[in-house]
């Protein structure tokens, strides 16, 4: 039996699929958030050096990871849209951008809250903080460019090109900034021989998955409304049960 890989690359079919997936992602995100926060705040032991302050990593680390991954996913969708000229890819790219920007803000914010007791300052011009800030600027540039072009097709392509140029630049910016100044602690999660307590690891992992599910749920919800907005003049939209009412 041949599987039609492209079945869900059309907005018509993807709209229904997204509608079915959203509740699954949303509910499991909520449940996992609850479990992860519980383990993080009540089960995980206190850190030897950082006391109770370290517990902010359960939000900070997943948010940082997500903000970077979502940019790459966004740029990937943008590239797909530019190369194959598919409508849905560009819609996905613009649906992901606000969530990515939100995670970048959360990451900066929680980092500042952690930095005050640990480093004694809200903000230090450290390499990772600075590149996270620049990442936020790149997200904002993408959103602003998309918003200021009236024709959606042109907006999609221009923003896609910007996202690709940005993703080429992200490593260059990251290494230049890292060379310039480094204070941030290295990553603790390694593929082998981690130094973390098991409960901390579990909480972190659960929170990471929860953040992923949240991002999926929100991006899919947003892409559904983008589809509705862009395709409002087509027949299949007017025949949708929720539109007919």
């Amino acid at each position: 039996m041949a599987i039609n890989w492209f079945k869900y690359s059309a907005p018509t079919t993807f709209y229904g699929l997204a509608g079915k997936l959203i509740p699954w992602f949303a509910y499991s995100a909520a449940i996992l958030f609850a479990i992860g926060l519980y383990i993080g705040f009540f089960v995980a032991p206190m850190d030897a050096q950082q006391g109770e302050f370290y517990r902010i990593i359960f939000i900070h680390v997943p948010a940082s990871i997500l903000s970077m991954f979502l940019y790459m996913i966004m740029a990937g969708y943008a590239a797909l849209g530019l190369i194959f000229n598919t409508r849905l890819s560009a819609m996905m790219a613009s649906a992901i951008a606000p969530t990515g920007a939100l995670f970048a803000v959360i990451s900066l914010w929680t980092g500042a809250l952690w930095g005050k007791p640990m480093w004694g300052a809200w903000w230090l011009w450290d390499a990772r903080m600075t590149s996270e800030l620049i990442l936020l600027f790149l997200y904002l540039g993408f959103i602003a460019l998309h918003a200021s072009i009236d024709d959606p097709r042109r907006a999609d392509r221009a923003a896609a090109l910007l996202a690709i140029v940005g993703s080429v630049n992200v490593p260059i910016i990251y290494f230049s900034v890292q060379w310039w100044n480094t204070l941030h602690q290295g990553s603790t999660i390694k593929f082998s021989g981690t130094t973390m307590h098991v409960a901390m690891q579990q909480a972190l992992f659960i929170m990471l998955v929860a953040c992923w599910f949240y991002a999926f749920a929100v991006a899919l919800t947003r892409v559904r409304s983008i589809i509705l907005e862009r395709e409002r003049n087509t027949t299949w939209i007017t025949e949708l049960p929720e539109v007919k009412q």
Partner: protein
Amino acid sequence: MLVIRRDLVLAMRRRADVLTTLIFFVMVVSLFPLGVGPEMAMLRKMAAGVLWVAALLSSMLSLGRLFSADYLDGTLEQMMLAPQSLSMLVLGKMTAHWMVSGLPLVLLAPVLGLQFDMSVQALGVLIFGLLLGTPVLSMIGAIGAALTLGLRGGGVLLSLLVLPLYIPMLIFGTGAVEAVASGLSIASHLSLMGALLVLSLVFTPWVTAHALRISME
């Protein structure tokens, strides 16, 4: 490279535009001592950063003019229809933009550096860095200019898009001056800037041409 000559002639016909950018550069640099105080030791430390940031801002200021006049009078459309590759035409326009807005900054920088009491050695590195860096600013900026072509509020948007991409140049350019001031080797900074210059030379004309096609359809 007729495009370069044509753009240079056009720029010379409208000398005021070119001069405003230069005056802006001088003014921004001169404002800093007024803002932070006239202590020479501090100014000497800041000099490279101030000059670089001012160069970033003033090269961005003139980016809006890179394509807009040609876009409005239809020349750009003719260029796209021309048998020559659009990338090469774009490269010509970038070069002309650099000669009008980047090169004068490089030539002016020593005078401004003396205002900040920079040593001859540091000044030499700064100039060399600017010489390597300003073409990259013109080239990366051209992508932004092509993407924001004909948009309302294009100028502010352009700065939002382009400034984050300028950051590596700023870091390496000021890093080289700092290295020479503390007696370290400058080779690594300058070779990285050279690498970025070569990379942009290869890729940005092509990306800009693509961006122009998106904006023009």
